[in-house]
C-alpha cells in the first residue's frame, strides 16, 4: 500500500528531503495511475536524468488528475497545473520569473524547467501555447507522453490517434471504420520550429530516453521530446505488456526513435534490421485490431510508416552531408553528454 502524504506535510518534510525522501523518485508512490501505465516510468526517467532542482508544469490529463489529488500530492518537486491548454505557457511564466529574480539577485540556485502533456494537451488544445512558448525561446523541456487519444476522458480521438483506430468519437460502424485520418506528426512539426533539440523516444529503451533528456538539457532554450506511452486501459492489452507494446512500435518502425538538433541535423537512433510487419503491432491492440479485416487500411498504414521511415533516413543522410559541408563533426554533434564530460 502506497504511503499518502498531505501537501502541507510534504512541504514541511521537504526541508529535510535527503533524509526523509532518501531513495524516492521525483514522482512518489501514492499516485493513482492505472496498473501498467507508461507515464510514471516516463516522468521518473525524465526527472531523474536532470541533475538539478526542477520545476514542473503539467497539462490537464491522466498525469495531472492522478498525481495531485487534494489534499495529497505525489510530486517531490515544485509542480504547477493550470489547465489543459497551458502547460507550456505556465512554465514559460515560471521561467520568465526565474530569469528576472535571478538577475535581481533574489535567487541563486540553478533550476531546470520541464512541462509534461499528453497528446491531447500537446498535439491539440495545447499546441498553440506550446508552439508559441518555443518560438519565444523559453529555456525548458517539453515532454509529451503520447498515448494516442484522450484516455483520461475515456478514449476519444486526438490528432495523435492513428488511422482506423477505434475511439469513443471514432467508432467502428457500417460507414466509417474508426478514425478516418492519419495521425499528425508533431515531432516533425516541432523540429520545423528550429529549436535546439527535438526527439522521439520510447520508455522501454530507458537508456535512450534518459540520454536524450541529458542531451536536451545541455542546450539552452526550448527542447521537445515526444515519447510513446502505450495505454493499457484504452488500447486494451494486459498491464504487464506496456513495454512489450512500446518495443513492438519501435520494431515495426511505427514509432521511430530519433533526434534532431536545431531542426537541421537528424539522427535515427534505432534501425531494426528486420522490421516486423505492422500487423503484429496492430494485432496486439483490441482498439485497432478490427482494421486487419480491411487490407486496404492496413496497406495505407504500412505505406505511411514506410514513407516516413524513408523520409527520416533521407533527412539523416542529408544532414550528414550538410555537416560535412559545414565542417561539423556529425558524430560529435550527437555524442552522449556524459561521454563529453568524461573527456573534459
Amino acid at each position, binding site marked *: 500500500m502506497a504511503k499518502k502524504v498531505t501537501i502541507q506535510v510534504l512541504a514541511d518534510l521537504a526541508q529535510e528531503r535527503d533524509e526523509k525522501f532518501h531513495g524516492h523518485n521525483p514522482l512518489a508512490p501514492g499516485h493513482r495511475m492505472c496498473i501498467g501505465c507508461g507515464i510514471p516510468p516516463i516522468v521518473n526517467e525524465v526527472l531523474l536524468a536532470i541533475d538539478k532542482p526542477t520545476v514542473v508544469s503539467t497539462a490537464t490529463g491522466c498525469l495531472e488528475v492522478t498525481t495531485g489529488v487534494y489534499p495529497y500530492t505525489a510530486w517531490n518537486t515544485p509542480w504547477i497545473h493550470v489547465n489543459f491548454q497551458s502547460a507550456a505557457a505556465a512554465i514559460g511564466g515560471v521561467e520568465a520569473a526565474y530569469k528576472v529574480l535571478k538577475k535581481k539577485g533574489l535567487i541563486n540556485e540553478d533550476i531546470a524547467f520541464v512541462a509534461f502533456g499528453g497528446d491531447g494537451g500537446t498535439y491539440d488544445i495545447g499546441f498553440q501555447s506550446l508552439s*508559441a512558448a518555443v518560438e519565444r525561446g523559453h529555456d525548458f523541456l517539453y515532454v509529451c507522453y503520447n498515448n494516442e487519444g484522450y484516455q483520461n476522458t475515456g478514449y476519444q480521438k486526438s490528432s495523435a490517434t492513428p488511422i482506423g483506430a477505434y475511439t469513443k468519437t471514432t467508432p467502428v460502424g457500417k460507414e466509417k471504420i474508426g478514425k478516418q485520418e492519419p495521425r499528425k506528426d508533431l515531432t516533425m512539426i516541432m523540429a520545423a520550429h528550429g529549436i535546439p533539440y527535438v526527439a522521439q523516444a520510447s520508455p522501454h529503451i530507458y537508456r535512450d530516453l534518459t540520454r536524450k533528456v541529458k542531451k536536451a538539457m545541455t542546450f539552452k532554450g526550448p527542447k521537445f521530446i515526444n515519447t510513446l506511452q502505450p495505454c493499457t486501459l484504452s488500447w486494451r492489452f494486459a498491464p504487464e505488456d506496456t513495454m512489450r507494446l512500446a518495443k513492438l512500435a519501435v520494431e515495426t518502425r511505427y514509432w521511430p526513435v530519433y533526434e534532431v538538433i536545431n531542426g537541421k541535423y537528424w539522427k535515427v537512433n534505432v534501425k531494426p534490421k528486420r522490421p516486423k510487419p505492422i500487423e503484429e503491432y496492430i494485432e496486439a491492440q483490441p482498439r485497432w485490431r478490427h482494421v486487419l479485416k480491411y487490407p486496404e487500411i492496413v496497406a495505407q498504414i504500412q505505406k505511411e510508416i514506410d514513407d516516413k521511415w524513408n523520409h527520416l533516413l533521407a533527412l539523416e543522410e542529408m544532414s550528414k552531408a550538410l555537416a560535412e559541408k559545414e565542417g561539423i563533426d556529425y558524430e560529435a554533434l550527437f555524442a552522449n553528454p556524459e561521454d563529453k564530460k568524461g573527456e573534459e
Partner: protein
Amino acid sequence: MSTKVIALTGNQAAAEAMRQINFDVAAVYPISPQTELMGFFAEYVANGEVDTDMVAVEGEHSAMAACIGAAAAGARVITASAGPGIAYMVENLYIASGMRLPIVLIDVNRALSAPLSIHCDHGDSMLTRDSGWISLFSENAQEAYHNLIMSVKIAEKAMFPVIVNYDGYIVSHSIENVEIFDDETVREFVGPSGIHRIPYPLLDVSKPVTYGATAQPDYYTECKYQQHVDFLKVYDIVREVFNEFESISGKRYDFIEEYMTEDAEYIGISMGSSFGTLKDAVNTLRAQGRKVGAIKIRLYRPFPVKELAQALSKAKGIAVLDRADSFDGIGGPLFKDVCTAILHNQNRSLVHNFIYGLGGREIHEEEFIKAFDRVERLEKGVETRDNLVEYLQVRA
C-alpha cells in the same frame, strides 16, 4: 515626496505606473484599446528603464497562464487586455484567484462582439465579476494611475488578484493632466520584489509545493469556502491600503464616491468615466432646486454592500446606470448588485435600471437628466413601467 503634473492619456498614465512599480514579469498580447499601453511599456523595457521580462504571448489565454506561472514562481506580475481578450482569458481568471495569486490585470474596458466594437462599455468587466478577482473602476487617468499603484499592495496583502478597469478610448486615449509621484515614493509604497512575497513560491526548490491540484467532491467545497471567507476580508484590506495611500498622497479614496447625496431624494449610480457627466446632470437639476445626488462605485468586487446601503438609506428613487446589459429580463449587472445591497434598508426606494453608453456611444447630460426624470415620475406614480430595465439613447 514630490509630484509633477503632466498631460497624459490613460494608457500613458498606466504605463508610467507600471514603470514605477517595476513589475518582474509582464505578459503582453495586443488588443484595442489596450494595445498602446503595452507599447508604451515595451519602450521602457527596451530602454532598460525597468527589470521586467516582457513575455509577448500568442493570446490572452496564455497571457494569464504565463502570469499564473510567474506569480506562483514568486514574481510580481501584470497583464492587460480588453473586451474579447478578457473573455478569452476568463477560464484562467478563475484559476488565478483559486490559487490565490497576487496578479494585476488592467482591463481597458471594451464592448463584446457581436457586432464587433472596439469601443467602451463594461460588458467585458462583467465577465470577471464572479471570478474571485478584486475589481476597481477608475473614472479618469488620474484614478487609473492611483488604482494601479494601490492594486499591487491590495493584491499582495489579500493574496487575491486585482483588476483595474478604465474606460476604453474615453480614458485610455484622452489626454488630461495627471499628477505623477516621483519614482521613490511609488517604489517605497509598493515595497521591493522578492520570491517570498507569497508564502509558497514554486522557485523555493528547498520546499517543493503543489499548485493546481485536483479536488474531488470531498474537498472542493472546503477550498471554495476558504476562498469565500478570505474574499470577505478584502474590504478591510482595501480600506487599509486606501488609508496608507492617503498618507502618502493626501488623496482620500473610499469604496464609493458620493456627490450631493446628503439630502438627495433621487440618486443616480454609475461607474467609470460617465460619473463626470452624471455630476453635471446633478448640478443642472440642483440649480433647478431638485434634490438629486450621484454615487460612483470605485470598488466593484467585493461589492460595497454596507456603504451603498447606508448611502441610499434615505433615497426615494434610485437610477442605476449600467454600461452593460444582461439580456435576462432582470436588469444590468450593476442594477442587481444595487438591489441586493439595499435589500434590508428600512425605506423601500424605487429602483430603476437604465442601459447606456454601449459600444462607445457617447453619453450626454440630458440623457442622465431623462433618467432622473423618469425615476421621479415612477416613484410619484405619474408613470408606470413594464420592465425594470430600459435603454437610454435608442434611436426611434
